[in-house]
């Protein structure tokens, strides 16, 4: 847990830094929070799925496995944070100039790629451990992908509730939006798809 707080906190700081020190501190707190809240919300479900799918991995072990996976991801992100910090220092601040939307998009893309890389690498390693520990390799694989699906589904919503992270140009820096529980991630995706289809 300390590794997650440190690694994700350090990386989160560099994500928010583009919008000032205050936002850097906010994201440093919120990025590890996404992981912890997701694990709390899914803790019971992950344990049940581990047992029902025949992996023999119960509640305590499933939490330990997932914390290990996220700790590996945090270490990778922590190691990447000096690079992210350097990249942020070389970007104009979010309120500057006419190219601010382009820089915002570039920053968003870079961080998404780096976080995805860290997540995929960590979970590939976790899959190996789960398969070895489970009663059968097949059951371990099933349990792992069930956890992954559940964590992605809930994690997307938790990050939606804890927004903003990147602060779109024109919006103010704040810890949480005024209405963090108004709407959900998937409704927003549906609305966005509907808007795109009307273009």
């Amino acid at each position, binding site marked *: 847990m300390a590794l997650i707080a440190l690694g994700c906190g350090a990386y989160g700081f560099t994500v928010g830094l583009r919008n000032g020190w205050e936002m850097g501190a906010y994201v440093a707190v919120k990025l590890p929070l996404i992981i912890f809240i997701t694990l*709390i*919300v*899914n*803790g*019971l*479900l992950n*344990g*049940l*799925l581990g*047992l*029902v799918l025949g992996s*023999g991995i119960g509640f305590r072990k499933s939490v330990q496995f997932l914390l290990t996976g996220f700790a590996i991801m945090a270490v990778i992100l922590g190691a990447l944070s000096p690079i992210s910090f350097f990249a942020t220092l070389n970007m104009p601040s979010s309120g500057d100039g006419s190219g601010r939307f382009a820089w915002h998009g570039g920053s968003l893309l870079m961080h998404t790629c780096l976080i995805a890389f860290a997540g995929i690498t960590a979970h590939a390693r976790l899959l190996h451990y789960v398969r070895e520990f489970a009663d059968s390799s097949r059951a371990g694989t099933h349990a792992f992908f069930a956890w992954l699906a*559940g964590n992605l*589904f*809930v994690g997307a*919503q*938790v990050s*939606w*509730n804890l927004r903003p992270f990147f602060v779109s140009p024109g919006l103010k820096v704040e810890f949480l939006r005024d209405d963090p*529980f*108004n*709407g*959900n991630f*998937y*409704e927003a995706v*549906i609305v966005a798809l*509907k808007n795109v289809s009307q273009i």
Partner: protein
Amino acid sequence: MNENKLDSTTGTTGSLKGGIPPSINDAQSGFVPMEGDASFSNLLSKLLRKPLSIFHELETKEALWKIPVTFILISVVSLTVFGLVVGTFSWGDQIWAAPLKIVSGLMFSALICLPSLYIFTCIGGLEARFSTVVGMLCSIVALSGLLLVGFAPVVWLFSVSSTSAVFIGFMLLALWMICVGFGFTLVFRAGKAMGMTNTGHLLVWCLIFLLVTVQMTTTLRPIVGESDALFNFEEKKFFLQYWSEELQQATD
């Protein structure tokens, strides 16, 4: 009767009376005598870890009505907890109406599907007692209920965040299908372990049970969202019509 059940494909006995050691195939499938007694906590643990051992117990021991009764108790408690969380989306009367509708609706669905399950498993070649088939049905509902409790924090997160009753409704339907899918997998495994030769009939029954439970959400509507009346028995609708109308209203 049970000793004569010979699995034609493996050549091993599918079911065993107490005292005879389980065959290698039975041990591998988990269809072995249950460790411990039929207490609530042991049954709960075995339902999650070694569910087939419960069916072995049901099939080989006399007068074990305690197991189905415990499963019904697990189902009622789990579904009540889940229903309360569903009720937090609308609060008001739904905080007690949603758990009541979910528990009673699912229990009624299970009851009306019990005769067909017995007949279909018999046609499929399963020479099981009626009490074992009751146990199979109760295990589906109990396992689904337990998994729904596991999903309860997720449902709560979305119920406090979402504004759309249709979104919550479809999410709950998807979660129900996932949970009942685990229950169906369990009865298929149990059926095969007990010597069922043709699983096609059981598959048809699973589809019927799913259809009945989904229709029950329409019969007992509204389970999610607010309404002037707690029940709407006058206006009869098929669930596909109801859900498509709801979806249409939400997207307009």
